[in-house]
């Protein structure tokens, strides 16, 4: 039995989510091979070879993978898929683009966003925005899975010494091309990898207030900034700040929810945080039902005070 992990990377380094997927593969058992489909990506492949538990790295290096387009990545996975019983990808924007294409090309079902491995055929995944957990068994000979990163502790980045094997890169599909990317440049830690997250909701009232009130606190704590779907819908911040079932799933050491009422869809994205703090003026807000420490207060007074006293 062997697992193929589709690495998410930027050609030079592995994205953290890849380590969680390798951990999920380890929970399934058997050999773990990692596919790095990139362009001039030998550094990323070398990093994958160091990860604890990895048996072999397949490097598909070619211009078609320069922008990590899912059409080409899926074709690459299919080209090497024959040897594997399980094909795993992170449940990130990248993995969600590639894995279903792979599953369809192989005529196999996909199980999305797994949070637990029961056995080699059976997995637990959240449904209905995390309001229920389904235990799902696959009858397919090959299982295509996407993995919720926060549910699996990352594999160690050292301790492995896998061989890197070059495989021929596929040709470009010709149907899609990269135009541009606008990646938010930030000194802050990435939302899904941050130890502390300061997150704001509708209670902040505007994008200006969101930045004015939360940025100093986040700076002081070296925290990532997040937001509820309501705050994103109201245009306070961009969608990539969104924590929730339809946004990012996070599980930091400390999650500070400011002016967030605690809609189910938001809770689904952060309830696995180790410690949750809620600051809200409404004592009946559902967020207090999950918060370890609740402060019923006007956030415009409490947050600056908190920032000053830290």
């Amino acid at each position, binding site marked *: 039995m062997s697992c193929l992990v589709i690495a998410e990377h930027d050609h030079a380094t592995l994205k953290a989510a890849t380590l969680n997927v390798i951990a999920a593969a380890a929970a399934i058992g058997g050999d773990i091979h990692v596919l790095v489909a990139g362009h001039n990506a030998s550094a990323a492949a070398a990093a994958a070879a160091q990860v604890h538990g990895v048996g072999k790295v397949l490097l598909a290096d070619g211009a078609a993978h320069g922008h990590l387009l899912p059409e080409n990545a899926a074709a690459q996975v299919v080209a090497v898929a024959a040897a594997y019983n399980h094909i795993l990808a992170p449940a990130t924007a990248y993995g969600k683009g590639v894995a279903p*294409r792979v599953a369809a090309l192989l005529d196999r079902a996909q199980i*999305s966003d797994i949070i637990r491995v029961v056995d080699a055929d059976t997995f637990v995944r959240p449904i209905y925005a995390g309001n*229920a957990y389904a235990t799902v068994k*696959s*009858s397919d000979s090959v299982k295509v899975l996407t993995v919720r990163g926060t549910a699996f502790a990352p594999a160690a980045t050292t301790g492995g010494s896998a061989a890197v094997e070059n495989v021929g890169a596929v040709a470009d599909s010709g149907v*899609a*091309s990269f135009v541009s990317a606008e990646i938010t440049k930030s000194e802050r830690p990435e939302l899904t990898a941050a130890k502390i997250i300061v997150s704001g909701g509708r209670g902040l009232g505007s994008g200006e207030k969101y930045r004015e009130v939360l940025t100093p606190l986040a700076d002081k704590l070296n925290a990532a900034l997040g937001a509820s779907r309501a705050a994103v819908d109201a245009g306070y911040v961009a969608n990539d700040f969104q924590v929730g079932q339809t946004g990012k799933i996070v599980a930091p*050491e400390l999650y500070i929810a400011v002016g967030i009422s605690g809609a189910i869809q938001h809770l689904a994205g952060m309830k696995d945080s180790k*410690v949750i703090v809620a600051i809200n003026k409404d004592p009946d807000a559902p967020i207090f039902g999950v918060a370890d420490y609740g402060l019923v207060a006007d956030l415009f007074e409490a947050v600056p005070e908190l920032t000053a006293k830290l």
Partner: protein
Amino acid sequence: MKILVPVKRVVDYNVKVRVKPDQSGVDIANVKMSMNPFCEIAVEEAVRLKEKGLASEIVAVSAGVAQCQETLRNAMAIGADRGILIESDAELQPLAVAKLLKAVVEREQPRLVILGKQAIDDDANQTGQMLAALLGWGQATFASKVELTADTVTVTREVDGGLETVALKLPAIVTTDLRLNEPRYATLPNIMKAKKKPLDTVKPADLGVDVTPRLTTLKVEEPPKRQGGVKVPDVATLIEKLKNEAKVI
């Protein structure tokens, strides 16, 4: 240009679902059903493209029980021109739905298919990408902006850390994210008009598709409940607790 918009009937997003005591699933008897919100955004986007003169016809398609007709009427009230129901009482999993949609695409020959990025019931986020792969088309998932010309679609996508823009040759697949648009409310005259629009019904067998499920749900459980903690009286106490009790700062 013809646009195909698949729509799914799901438990309304305002309903808090309950797990059945026998763990066989969630209880959806007598629960309000609506069009999946991401599918609504897909219909709205198609209608806007038609209003700009970039599309000539919008065909809504749904797969599922007979009541999916209501979902199709809803799509037609927003502005779709006609509907196709692929009627089946069987459990339809994403791969089967993608195969059904592929068969419809081959009949209807749309240049663009716009779908929701995921349904809020099974949260699978698979169907659009699977359909794109089965057709050998390009895909742009999580769209926040769509620009259509006669032979390409340029899509700005919501990705981790920001935005990415890709250009796809038509025909192509687009899946919608939240911020693409805000769907209009269907007006009463449009709801009345939608009742007269054509709605065809076909069966999976008519399309030559085997929809046998590949996955079996063994059980559905309540997620573990997180216990609420304490309320603190002031900021100073909060800091003290975080430092000395939780030890997270």
